[in-house]
């Protein structure tokens, strides 16, 4: 495992544990993500990678351990937690665009209601973001009128509108038709190039090779490997990782 200076980390998890009843889903997780770093988390389903991602903005609570964002420990509940979440962008597998709001409103709602940005300014910023992810002309539509790939790009714009310090992606392409995966990955690769700090849970190995600074491999609730993509894909150390990669390559 790569060792890092914890003080340097934008996101740090220290000895984090979580149980679902009997099931130990996160086992003593230690992970540091530096500013500007793109960390891809991969692993078989049920390995706890989504739970890990969701724990970072406390959509999942943890049993013990410490999670810090930019040096600040995650508050338990209430206003402080809401404030911290505004700094952490999240993109979900199922997009979760607000179904009763237009595309533009989906993006402006956070800045207006949470940050108190004036509507005109929020609209302008939102349009710029929507253009950037290639769905500017869809602004007045409702989410259900867009394709999955378009919805997911709007979801990325919605998260970016809050000007987050770090972006979490929880299997952002798993619910998409194959031909739509690339349009979402392209936006993410662009984002990575621009220096956004990203934690990405995904099954897209191509994205991991292309955009990741580090690959974290999880199995059975543990971080089994933490290496550069080059190292991980060409020379995995653990048998769990070797097994996982061999299954991917057979098809």
């Amino acid at each position, binding site marked *: 495992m790569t060792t890092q200076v914890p003080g340097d980390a934008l996101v740090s998890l220290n000895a984090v544990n979580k149980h679902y009843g009997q099931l130990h889903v996160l086992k003593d997780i230690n992970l540091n993500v530096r500013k500007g770093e793109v960390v891809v988390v991969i692993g078989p389903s049920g390995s706890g990678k989504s739970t890990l991602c969701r724990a970072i*903005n406390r*959509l999942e609570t943890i049993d013990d351990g410490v999670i810090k964002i930019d040096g600040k420990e995650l508050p338990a*509940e*209430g*206003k402080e937690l*809401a*404030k911290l*979440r*505004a*700094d*952490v*962008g*999240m993109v*979900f597998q*199922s997009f*979760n*665009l*607000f*179904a*009763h709001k237009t595309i533009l409103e989906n993006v402006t*709602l*956070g800045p207006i*209601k*949470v*940050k108190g940005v004036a509507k005109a300014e929020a609209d302008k910023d939102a349009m710029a973001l929507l253009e950037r992810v290639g769905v500017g002309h869809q602004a007045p539509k*409702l989410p*259900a*009128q867009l394709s999955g790939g378009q919805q997911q790009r709007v*979801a990325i714009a*919605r*998260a970016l*509108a*809050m000007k987050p310090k770090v972006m979490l992606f929880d299997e952002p392409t798993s619910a998409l038709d194959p031909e739509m995966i690339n349009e979402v990955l392209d936006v993410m690769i662009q984002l990575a190039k621009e220096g956004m700090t990203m934690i990405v849970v995904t099954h897209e190995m191509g994205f991991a090779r292309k955009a990741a600074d580090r690959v974290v491999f999880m199995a059975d609730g543990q971080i089994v490997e933490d290496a550069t993509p080059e190292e991980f894909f060409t020379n995995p150390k653990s048998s769990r990782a070797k097994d996982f990669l061999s299954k991917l390559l057979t098809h």
Partner: protein
Amino acid sequence: MDVIIESLPQYWDGFLRTLFLAVVSGIIALIFGTLLAAARVSPIAALRGFSMAYVEIVRNTPLTIAFFFAAVVLPRLGVTFQQFEVAAIIALSAYTSAFIAEAVRSGVNSVPIGQAEAARSIGMKFSQVLSLIILPQALRTVIPPLINILIALVKNSSVAGAFYVLELFGYGKQLANEHGDAVMSVLIGVAFFYLLITVPLGYLATVVERKVAIAR
């Protein structure tokens, strides 16, 4: 049937009073019921407990008891009214809000959890998540049951006739006493005026539902 024509002024007066009771109680019940539903899903245990107890007690006791409370018990506790209509409105809205609360709560449960997670993840507080994201979607899905409850409210307002409020049913009783030979016609007249409110309400449900439906 002559009795209906003859008594049109009474019918009309009763109709307006029934409509008044239903509209005022309906608005109060919609607001209070939604607040009860919000309390039911709030992170504060005391609010959840209050809402649950209120709904369980009020929903499971007869409306007549609510009327007795408002018209008889409250005045003895020092809360007096100039008009019995006020007591009727208190009883009807207190009773109906318990049903509204349950309907709205089922609507809240029908909104996918991802909507709330997305709202929380952009930094919204609980009150914002509820008022901006969850309730607007929940209310749209429960329009048919809400209209059902409002139709029941219109009919339930007839209990006020037994508590000295001259609404449709109150006049109906009076007219039936005066025209002992035409009770049938009198009641048909009463029924007709109730239908004048309830049938359009049912149609309203269809129209509103179609208008506000959310595509997913």
